[in-house]
């Protein structure tokens, strides 16, 4: 069993759950530990309930896990809701003046802090939360200095007195915990070089910067807004034009305009905003101007549950916009992959002059993970495809923007280049851009132009690697997933292996092109197949069947708004292997 340690901090929105969370994350990562964090929250600015879980350990942590080792309830509600999730060896650190303990399993340690006494009756809430962090660090076997460093950094703008006060208060809690509470059985080690910590949305934005995106625009929509925030904060340094637009229709049209003029452009939204973008996506395909759109899925339909996760937009992506046209759809498989996939899909969109869609979800985009900073390599390959940005002669004028070619790709001249004037039209057009939609309709030319555009799909398929199986070749069961479920399925496989069940995994990263033949080639060798996805109707299962006729043996689905936890998958797999059940819908035990 991997050595991991999970801290959960709960409280009302506005009580400051994020700050201790960030302090823990920073301290863990600076020790070279890995981490994975998930914040279960609500669409409320003050009040309600927020529950952040940070799981750390010396090896890569791929999910927020199943168990809580340390609970920090900032209010009574959190104590009451989550105490039952704690088992032997776990502890609760809380403000003994304000929160009362409840009934817990045997072996759970209650650690009330005399907050008023330790803070000298200060009403500073940040200090109160810092006490809990400090006490917890003592119990984890992490020295006090890392916290002192973080606090010094955090408060240095407010002056030495504030720094000194906070460090002193934290120190008193650290010492109190050392004297009064029992330390955790396995201290968290110092493992090596510090890691970087980032959310999926930050990774997507940084991926855009690495890809050379020079135009980013968006309309705020949870859970995609983090991309806009990173972009806006770093725009000037990165030389990126960032705009907040009046609506998502304006967003995609503005981004396409910018792309058409020659920059790499990108935008992000969630399902509802994406619905507004659909017509624009078709324009991108029709005028053959590349665009990259990120859809961060949240629980739908309609406004749905804005702060909860789901993999429910796949069919929207597959069918977005009327008519047939080439498109590329990627579903990154972890937070680092959010960074990696963006330059890749920009290269493809540029080369094939069509829309590229990146399908993430709240779990990935708002989740936090540690990565090796060396993996955030901005020195990526940039392939802009057949792009004409200057001309040395004015004589061309035979230029045909939509020239018929074997690949379906026509050289793309950007506005401003002499001798290459043309009109890019959303109406059907001929090679030279002249419309064949109104006066000069012509079935032969229409067919030729449809085939030209669609020919690009063959090139896209050849440019994208088919999916591969991970884990033992010969396994009891093959678990199939797509996108964000990669980490939790991987962890479920590790747990199953400990229980004597071998499982391998087929995780789909490129939804389009799917490489259906390669998928079937893999799956037909499997002893048993179970398809896992975070939605009601089995959107990927239906897509897989429509593309390949393949039908898996069983399904595990979840559509309660919360992500899978490893034991949900483990239990369901065992249940399905043992009996005749082919559909499992695990119940989420944590209520936020």
């Amino acid at each position, binding site marked *: 069993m991997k050595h991991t340690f999970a801290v959960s901090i709960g409280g009302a929105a506005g009580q400051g759950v994020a700050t201790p969370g960030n302090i823990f994350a920073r301290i863990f990562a600076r020790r070279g530990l890995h981490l994975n964090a998930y914040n279960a929250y609500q669409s409320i600015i003050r009040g309600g309930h927020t529950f952040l879980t940070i799981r750390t350990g010396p090896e890569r942590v791929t999910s927020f896990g199943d168990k809580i080792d340390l609970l920090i309830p900032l209010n009574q509600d959190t104590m009451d809701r989550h105490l039952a999730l704690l088992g032997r060896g776990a502890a609760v650190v809380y403000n003994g003046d304000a929160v009362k303990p409840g009934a817990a399993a045997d072996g759970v340690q209650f650690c009330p802090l005399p907050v008023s006494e330790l803070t000298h009756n200060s009403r500073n809430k940040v200090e109160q939360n810092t006490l809990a962090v400090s006490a917890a660090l003592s119990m984890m076997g992490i020295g006090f200095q890392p916290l002192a460093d973080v606090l010094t950094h955090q408060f240095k703008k407010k002056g030495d007195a504030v720094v000194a006060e906070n460090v002193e208060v934290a120190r008193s809690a650290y010492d109190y915990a050392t004297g009064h509470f029992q330390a955790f059985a396995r201290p968290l080690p110092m493992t090596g070089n510090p890691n970087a910590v980032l959310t999926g949305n930050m990774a997507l934005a940084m991926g855009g910067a690495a890809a050379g995106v020079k135009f980013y625009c968006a309309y705020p929509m949870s859970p995609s807004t983090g991309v806009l925030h990173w972009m806006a904060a770093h725009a000037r340094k990165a*030389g990126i034009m960032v705009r907040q637009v009046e609506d998502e229709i304006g967003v995609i049209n503005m981004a396409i305009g910018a792309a058409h003029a020659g*920059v790499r452009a990108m935008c992000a939204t969630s399902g509802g905003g994406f619905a507004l973008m659909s017509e624009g996506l078709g324009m991108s395909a029709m005028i053959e101007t590349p665009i990259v759109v990120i859809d961060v899925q949240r629980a739908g339909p309609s406004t749905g549950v804005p702060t909860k996760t789901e993999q429910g937009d796949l069919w929207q992506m597959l069918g977005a916009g009327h008519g047939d046209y080439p498109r590329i759809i990627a579903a990154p498989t972890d937070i680092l992959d959010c960074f990696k996939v963006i330059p890749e899909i920009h290269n493809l969109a540029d080369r094939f002059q069509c829309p590229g869609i990146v399908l993430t979800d709240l779990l990935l985009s708002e989740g936090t993970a540690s990565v090796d900073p060396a993996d955030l390599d901005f020195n990526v390959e940039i392939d802009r495809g057949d792009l004409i940005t200057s001309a040395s002669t004015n004589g061309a004028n035979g230029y045909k923007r939509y020239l018929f070619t074997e690949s379906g790709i026509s050289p793309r001249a950007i506005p*401003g280049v*002499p001798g290459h004037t043309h009109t890019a039209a959303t109406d059907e057009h001929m090679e030279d851009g002249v419309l064949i939609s109104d006066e000069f309709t012509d079935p032969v030319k229409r067919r030729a132009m449809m085939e030209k555009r669609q020919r690009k799909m063959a090139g896209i398929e050849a440019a994208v690697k088919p999916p591969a199986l991970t884990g033992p070749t010969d396994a009891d069961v093959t678990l199939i997933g797509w996108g964000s479920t990669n980490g939790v399925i991987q962890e479920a496989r590790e747990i199953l292996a400990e229980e004597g069940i071998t499982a391998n995994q087929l995780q789909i990263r490129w939804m389009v092109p799917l490489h259906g033949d390669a998928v079937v080639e893999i799956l037909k060798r499997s002893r048993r197949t179970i398809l896992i996805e975070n939605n009601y109707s089995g959107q990927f299962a239906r897509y897989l069947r429509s593309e390949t006729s393949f039908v898996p043996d069983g399904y595990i689905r979840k559509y309660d708004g919360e992500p899978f936890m490893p034991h949900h998958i483990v239990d369901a797999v065992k249940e399905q292997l043992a009996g005749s059940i082919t559909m499992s819908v695990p119940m989420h035990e944590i209520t936020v």
Partner: protein
Amino acid sequence: MATTAPLFKQVTLPDLKGKVDPDWCPGCGDFGVLAAFEKALVDLQIQPHNVVTISGIGCSSNLPGYVNTYGMHTLHGRALAVATGVKLANHELTVVVTGGDGDGFGIGGNHFIHTMRRNVDLLYLAMDNQIYGLTTGQTSPTSQVGMKTKSAPFGNVEPPVNPIALAIAAGATFVARGFSGEQRHLTELIKQGLQHKGFAFIDVFSPCVTYNHDNTYPWFKQRVKKLEDDTSYNPANWLMAMEKSQVWGDVIPIGKFFQRADRPSLEQCEPVLDEGGPLSHRDLHIPAETVKEFITELM
């Protein structure tokens, strides 16, 4: 931009002729707008390859195909959003948006307001015929009350939008009204609009000879009166402009209602464009020290 000297030659009207002739109905007001637009480009000697003419959907939105500049014939109502993207990506281009009243004030109303608020450096030529022509004659946002159309066979009961007043209120920095039947006047307005730094809006009466039998050439000819002929009118006066925008009846003013030059355009407000030329021609890589800074923030 590799625009070396030999590439520039005297721009003449034939240079601006598009690949095909317009398929507008004979007598359509849009012919006059196209002619005035081409004449303005020639008068100002703007190189066709440095112009992007962008439209939405509708009869008048077919215009980019009829003029030899770079063109984009986009989605219904979306031309201003697309044009904003083009302009920000390459602010050295001259960006002109054309389209009709349904396209601009109906389906595109949201973008119309916000593009004016932002003062993007564009010229927006709305070819206003107070009817939906391409869909064969339905009520438009500028159709007058009482007008009978296929979608309001007993007479329109909704008051029209006043594009001039809306533009002045929304923050457009150049607001004018032209008439397709007044070629020379319209050409002058377009030239002023092209030279204006900021959002220039010209609402052009462009009669639909097929579907609008109320607001015809003779109807306008009897009513239009040039603001330029009134020496007491001051287009720098916002209140006067707003007041004048309400005049509609036996007399309908045309000409420049409002202009201010003291507001910077969006591109001028954006520090990312301060130096380094158009975004569309910049190096895509981010300097190593900046990358290092970005990553250090995460540690």
